């Protein structure tokens, strides 16, 4: 069983939901990534989504774009990100790591080479934002061949016909983008999410994580009441961005603990 499947299975038996924080690898500088990943785990992260910096992050808002630009200023490439995951695996053998990024750095690396090196580094899942199902049968095949989960997005605007494509090509979990727009924008429509999730879960046969627009413990707990996982990105990046030098890991841990507590409290209630 993959680390991601094992994690969801363990959580389910405890009647808990997954907390999935996102940070951009190399932000605010490469030396901070490992301490931040450990800080996320200390705060209660079940899975870590690690952003691979890209020069043109079209689907992201200004917060994550700035994180990408800070990392790129240090020359953080996909190869360096894989090295970071390798280092993380030396101190944490259980927390799944999902790389999230754009197609071009992966294609420049070479799909087969990337699959081989990502597996060796200890990557568990890969989400390529600009690979919709119709363009990535090959990507899905290559990832699955090395035991890495290809993770796909669904959106409020997705028609039901797409659920089957995603069910066939994807594994691990589905990332449901909870609002129209880019990362970090606006607020979430909980009723809409609550209405869609059961149908999606039933058709894709995978856990469904919800992200985009979740900024605090209250909204995280509300999402946890309907989804299998809660993804938080921009708010963590903002915390890192505004943290006085050296304090980011502690602040991130504190923020996630608050979110974790709210999510777990709901589940006990």
């Amino acid at each position, binding site marked *: 069983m993959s680390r991601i499947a094992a994690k969801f299975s363990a959580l389910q038996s405890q009647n808990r939901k997954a907390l999935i924080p996102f940070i951009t690898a190399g932000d605010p500088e490469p030396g901070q990534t490992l301490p931040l990943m450990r800080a996320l785990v200390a705060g209660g992260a079940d899975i870590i989504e690690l952003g691979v910096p*890209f*020069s*043109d*992050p*079209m*689907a992201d*808002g*200004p917060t994550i*774009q700035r994180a990408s*630009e800070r990392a*790129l200023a240090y020359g953080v*490439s*996909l*190869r360096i990100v894989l090295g970071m995951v390798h280092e993380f695996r030396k101190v944490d053998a259980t927390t799944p790591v999902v790389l999230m990024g*754009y*197609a*071009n*750095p*992966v*294609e*420049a*690396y070479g799909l087969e080479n990337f699959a081989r090196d990502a597996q060796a580094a200890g990557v568990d899942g890969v989400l390529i*934002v*600009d*690979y*919709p199902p*119709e*363009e990535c049968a090959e990507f899905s095949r290559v990832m699955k061949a090395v035991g890495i989960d290809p993770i*796909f*997005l*669904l*959106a409020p*605007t*997705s*028609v039901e016909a*797409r659920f089957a494509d995603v069910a066939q090509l994807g594994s691990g979990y589905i990332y449901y*983008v909870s609002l*129209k*727009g*880019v990362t970090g*924008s*606006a607020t979430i429509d909980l009723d809409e999410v609550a209405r869609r999730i059961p149908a999606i879960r039933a058709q894709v046969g995978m856990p469904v994580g919800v992200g985009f627009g979740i900024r605090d413990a209250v909204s995280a707990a509300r999402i946890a009441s309907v989804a299998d996982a809660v993804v938080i990105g921009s708010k963590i990046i903002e915390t890192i961005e505004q943290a006085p030098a050296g304090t980011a890991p502690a602040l991130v841990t504190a923020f996630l603990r608050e979110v974790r507590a709210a999510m777990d409290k709901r589940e006990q209630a």
Partner: protein
Amino acid sequence: MQVNEYNMPDDRGHFGKYGGIFVAETLIPALAELNAAYEQAQKDPEFRAEFEDELEHYVGRPSPIYHAKRWSQLLGGAQIYLKREDLNHTGAHKINNCIGQALLARRMGKPRVIAETGAGQHGVATATVAARYGMDCVVYMGSEDIRRQAANVYRMKLLGAKVVPVESGSKTLKDALNEAMRDWVTNIADTFYIIGTVAGPHPYPMMVRDFQAVIGRECLGQMSALAGRQPDQVIACVGGGSNAMGIFYDYIPHTDVKLVGVEAAGHGIESGKHAASLTAGRPGVLHGNRTYLLQDANGQIIETHSISAGLDYPGVGPEHAWLKDSGRAEYVTVTDDEALAAFHDLCGYEGIIPALESSHALAYAKRLAPTLAQDRILLVNLSGRGDKDMHTVAEKSGIQF
């Protein structure tokens, strides 16, 4: 290659291995809606008739072809003919596509249009049609381009558009495109994104080409009438590649006509400061399609340079990528200095002030003409006029207004 049966792209927008739909899931339904609306519009004679009527009465088509006899004589070789897209309303070929997409937006009931712009030509054309059809208009433009193209920014504002400066990345066309995509994904219900070039996710490369194909279609008839035959070579500048696709498209089956796209070599390919994606790039994925891109070893998109803002783009339309690989078209490069020299030639010898973009195509004709016999014919797409470039050219010549 069976160019007689040219029927690119396939139904998912692939030109061979190029093109496609590489966007986040959030955009997929909007593209499907657009694709369906476009397919239906194309089959509707009323839509075609209205498009053609607008081109005739509002844009001023057909644009003439002009034989640049004096310049040809001075160069001492092949005859240079100019397709005068610079004489269109708003001064460039961009308006052809904007009319088409705005009519489609209206048909789809979208009251708001957005656009990205580099040189400002596409922004002006979009602002123009938005005013013409009573639509709200927002144009995204890199802050570096806003500085270089102040006159066009003012034009857009006069036409009622809101111009939003883009400060991210290299602050040029590619960043404006990123920002326009973000607006679109956020405001999908009421907004139509008018892409200005033959790039982006399907159906844009095909749709923009179709709206621009009027250029080549007119040339086929006009060259017969003017010269009694088709040209030996058709030459056009290539940034994203819309004016080139527009003039190439109907010539693709005419395999005895050579098609030449001219990319911006900036300070020279070897300097690394250029915008020649087909000549010096590698295939990759950006802005919704697979195509040739200027990128570093790690797949990061690199900043480009050209004296002409309209060519300053690290990608290129996927159909050009396919035409290059198949050998049907050839792609060459011209430096800033060569483009400037051709710019001054056309001003001085023909009384025509060309856009700096188009000056790249002119510069290649200038290089080529003296090597060919006087009965050879080169047809150059003079895609836009140079009024917008006064500031840049004056600066280069050390002149201050």
